């Protein structure tokens, strides 16, 4: 496999993403909500009104950290679905597949394009989240809660793994979809387990410590591997040309 070929496809896709306003809005809106909206909630509800105790505040901050894992699952869906179904709609797969590029190089290129912008956006928003959260909770806690091992593990393990998971899932869903919105809608099903984890954290059913995050990362990794094999099976030129189009 030649990474250079995959990169050519990825660069082309990212250039197209930059020209689609709704994709840009999607890439900016959610990270903005996570990076500024969540600390603002802490500031308004917790810190300013002194409504939460220090322990409760830590629990909420911890649960909020997991939103970055959820966000990393949501954002690639938007791009991956567009990237794949977009090719179908523009009927550009046939000339593309007629070039000397292998199926795996093409798939890798599409995956890179759907992976890099969302993960970068999530990382940038996490910097805002940690900075603003510390700024607005320091007076209650007496110290800066972020960065810590929990969010570190979420950012370094859960975020990339869940991004890969949603890309793999989007490839499978997109193979049957003929409409970008429909593909995006169906692909969002993949984030339901992430929300369940979040709710379980909020109600105290599980504690989001490094051990739990490690287990979650392991489960996502296994799911990633399974979806990788399924998506490579789906993404084959004959299948694409005779059944996708």
């Amino acid at each position, binding site marked *: 496999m030649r990474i250079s070929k995959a990169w*050519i496809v990825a660069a*082309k896709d990212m250039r*197209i993403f930059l020209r689609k306003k709704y994709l840009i809005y999607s890439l900016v809106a959610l990270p903005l909500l996570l990076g500024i909206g969540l600390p603002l909630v802490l500031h308004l509800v917790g810190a300013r009104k002194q409504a939460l105790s220090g322990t409760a505040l830590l629990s909420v901050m911890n649960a909020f950290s997991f939103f970055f894992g959820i966000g990393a699952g949501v954002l690639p869906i938007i791009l991956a679905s567009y990237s794949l179904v977009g090719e179908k709609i*523009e009927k550009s797969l046939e000339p593309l597949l*007629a070039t*000397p590029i292998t199926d795996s190089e093409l798939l890798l290129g599409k995956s890179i394009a759907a992976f890099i912008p969302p993960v970068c956006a999530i990382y940038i928003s996490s910097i805002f989240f940690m900075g603003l959260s510390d700024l607005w909770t320091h007076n209650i806690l007496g110290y800066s809660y972020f960065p810590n091992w929990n969010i570190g593990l979420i950012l370094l393990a859960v975020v990339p793994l869940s991004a890969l998971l949603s890309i793999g899932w989007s490839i499978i869903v997109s193979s049957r979809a003929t409409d970008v919105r429909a593909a995006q809608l169906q692909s969002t099903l993949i984030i339901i387990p992430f929300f369940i984890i979040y709710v379980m954290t909020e109600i105290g059913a599980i504690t989001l410590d490094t051990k739990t995050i490690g287990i979650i990362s392991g489960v996502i990794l296994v799911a990633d591997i399974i979806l990788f094999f399924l998506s490579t099976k789906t993404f084959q030129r004959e299948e694409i040309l*005779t059944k996708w189009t």
Partner: protein
Amino acid sequence: MITIENLTKKFGEVTAVDGLTFSVDEGEVFGFLGPNGAGKTTTIRMLCCLISKTSGEATIGDYHIGKTDDSLAIRKMIGLVPDNVGLYDDLTAFENLDFYGKLYEVPEGRRRENIERFLKMLDLWDRKDARAGSFSKGMKQKLALARALVHEPNILFMDEPTANLDPESAKTVRDFIMEVKKQGRTIFLNTHNLDEAQKICDRIGIIKTKLLTIGTPDQLKESRTAPKTEIRLAQVTEVLVSALRKLIPNKIEVSGDKLLINVTDPDKENPTIITAIASSGGQIREVTQIVPSLEDVYLQIVKETK
């Protein structure tokens, strides 16, 4: 350059292409004619290594279709203009070509040179920075042609390149194909347009799942339909026709004030026919030689397979 032997493609129970055998020489423009669903696109897709063959053999240059190792080499030496142009509407004309040039590993300098050359040839250079989505159908088709040539392939596959184009755009595309032919490239052209095939193809194959016939346009016309001499008279009478039938052995049809006479060698037979008419008292107003068109041949061949 392209050799095909007993090439077959089945989709489940349906046979899309059945035992094709023919070859296309280097520098030749080969036209592939056939009705919708005849297997033309499937054949091109197999030759471009886009889909697998069910059985048979095909080679492009020294490379075998269906061999994984050869597929990339084949795709490197061919260019494809598919039936749907498949351009990226959000990329400019230049970016579309540049992307494909990169995929074909054309060095940057050469790539820019080729893009400029082909866009200028197709009158698109002034619109190089405009998004492909803003182009008309004809402009998109021209851009797709440039895209297929950006890496200077030896063989060009075209799937109905002038379909749904206005006459002016179709002519530009045809002229460009002729220009490409002059450069010595081999062209495999799928088309519905018989006039186009007759004008630009060196040889034509007619397919309807199976290859029905193959030859130069003239060979095809001669092989199927006899030429006719049409003679318009001042008046056609039964007496005149029966007198003529005694004088000449040719088949005579009457249509209003015209006689349609089957001939095999018009130069030899026409003077005899005209003399016979004159001697039978017929007054000739006009003599026209009717040469069968490729369309007549095509329709006849396709009809025979029904």
